[in-house]
């Protein structure tokens, strides 16, 4: 297995794995698998379950940002039977931070739109770590509109720290393009399925995130602002309070499904997606196919109506006479 980046809290897991590997190597010469090996494998599973079952919000963020975490390109490889990439926004350029193209998933032909962070340093620089410019959002909506024309369902894989904050991005209308996408996606008469596969960074994520179904991987996060940014603004100590901010923002899959923002949480294999791309992809594929089947029977008009109502119902507030609200609360 290739060497993978170890997160600080994963150390006991890797230590135990090393011990187990030693033991297994020794026991190969003897016959069968020793009780000791079996015991240790069980212990390892329990340890992974325990550590990954009790991650803090900040630890979850580090898993979501893990350099070996599967990206859109991995899912194209592992989930899709075919991928025909379509480049460019026909106005300015081809933003490499967002990948778009036709894909086949099971029996479905879809339009796949996904952030791609890149794996090598060179690729990451090209793709700006998945931080798209206005042309990326323009490319995304253009391909989605093309798909809607032929009622090809759309799948959006979200994985970005945020839309790119730069001079060129502002000059070319970052806010304008994200806003356009929000409006246009709400009107597309074809099924839209969104999944946050890693980082769901604010407007940059939402810019391809208006769907009929929204799911997220177990250790992905989705937030209005990065914990670092929130720490700087509200705690005024740079990123000193990022752990507290991560906790306060309620950005994990658990919280988001309780808040009714995500419809389903896609389980990750024991020890996180970065430990096993293949089974992560299998879980994701199953979820995507379920959604595509569910949505297949709805007319374009119904989809748009239901999508509107889905987002329309998001938000928590109170109304009525304050005295009545108090009375109801105590009743």
């Amino acid at each position, binding site marked *: 297995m290739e060497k993978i980046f170890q997160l600080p809290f994963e150390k006991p897991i890797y230590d135990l794995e090393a011990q187990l590997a030693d033991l297994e190597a020794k026991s190969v010469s003897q016959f069968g698998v020793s009780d000791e090996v079996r015991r240790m494998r069980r212990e390892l599973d329990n340890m992974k379950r325990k550590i990954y079952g009790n991650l803090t919000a900040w630890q979850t963020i580090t898993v979501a940002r893990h350099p070996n975490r599967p990206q859109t390109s991995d899912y194209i490889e592992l989930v899709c039977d075919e991928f025909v990439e379509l480049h460019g926004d026909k106005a300015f350029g081809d933003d490499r931070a967002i990948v778009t193209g036709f894909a086949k998933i099971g029996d479905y032909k879809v339009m796949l739109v996904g952030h791609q962070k890149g794996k090598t340093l060179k690729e990451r620089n090209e793709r700006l770590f998945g931080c798209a410019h206005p042309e990326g959002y323009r490319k995304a909506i253009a391909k989605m509109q093309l798909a809607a024309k032929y009622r090809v369902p759309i799948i959006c894989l979200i994985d970005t720290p945020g839309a790119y*904050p730069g001079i060129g991005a502002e000059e070319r209308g970052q806010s304008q393009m994200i*806003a356009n996408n929000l409006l246009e996606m709400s009107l597309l008469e074809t099924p839209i399925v969104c999944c946050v596969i890693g980082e769901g960074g604010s407007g940059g994520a939402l810019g391809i995130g208006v769907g009929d179904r929204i799911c997220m991987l177990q250790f992905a996060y989705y937030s209005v602002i990065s914990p670092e940014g929130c720490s700087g603004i509200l705690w005024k100590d740079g990123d000193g309070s990022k752990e507290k901010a991560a906790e306060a923002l309620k950005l994990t899959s658990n919280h988001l499904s309780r808040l009714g923002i995500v419809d389903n949480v896609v389980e990750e294999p024991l020890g996180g997606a970065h430990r096993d791309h293949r089974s992560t992809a299998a879980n994701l594929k199953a979820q995507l196919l379920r959604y595509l089947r569910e949505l297949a029977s709805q007319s374009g008009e119904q989809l748009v109506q239901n999508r509107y109502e889905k987002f329309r119902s998001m938000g928590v507030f109170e109304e009525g006479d304050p005295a009545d609200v108090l009375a109801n609360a105590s009743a």
Partner: protein
Amino acid sequence: MVMGTGQRRTKRGVPEGLWMSCPDCKATLYTKDVEQAQNVCPQCGHHFYISARRRLDSLLDQGSLEEWFTDVRPKDPLEFVDRKAYKDRLRAEQKKTDLNDAIVCGRGFIRGRPLAVCVTDSAFSMGSMGSVVGEMLVRSIERAIDLSLPIVIVSASGGGARMQEGILSLMQMAKVSAALGRLSRAGGLYISVLTNPTMGGVAASFASLGDICLAEPRALIGFAGPRTIWATVRIELPKGFQTSEFLLEHGFVDRIVSRHDMRGEISRIFDYCGK
């Protein structure tokens, strides 16, 4: 009350006295004169902060406002606590501004023509959009569709999407934009008025979606905050970066209109786009 805003982050609500100074031209001004001029510097035209209610007074025909949804109030769904509890922050902001949240909505008239109008107020939690702002905007847009009214939304929201309501604030961006999509399909007119400051999630949703986008002069308008951008690119930002004039130059604003002329300009657009 006249408040200093502007890019140099002057403290809000300072000049309560008889005299104040303009952060742009440095002139010493008689506070009454500035107030009478709709909080615009009589010397150089610097646009000071103006509250949502006073904005409505200056924009609409006298006494024509019928306020909508006045009993919608914020809650604290995440039980958010930073250095202060969100609940306490809300109470303090409500007391300071005499508003339930960062927005006032309603129906009014401009030169005898009815319209739906919403104004965000940057004095309330930086004018940021949480559930209440999102909800009231959507209800206003839906009502504008039902009543076949044009809608004017004035943004003064430096805070973008409100952090203390987390993901719910982010979703308001999609929710309001979807409502504007419906309005557009229904043939309704939407005029967006961008004022200082309009940033982040507000800029990246309804504020940019006007059929016509008007901006007050020298307002700060953009997606990412100048400090965030500087921290990323580490080069000096161009002069006038993210101002109304910058947006006009790059093609994202239809016209720059001073506060004094706003009524007239809006009414003229109604002339062309009215039904």
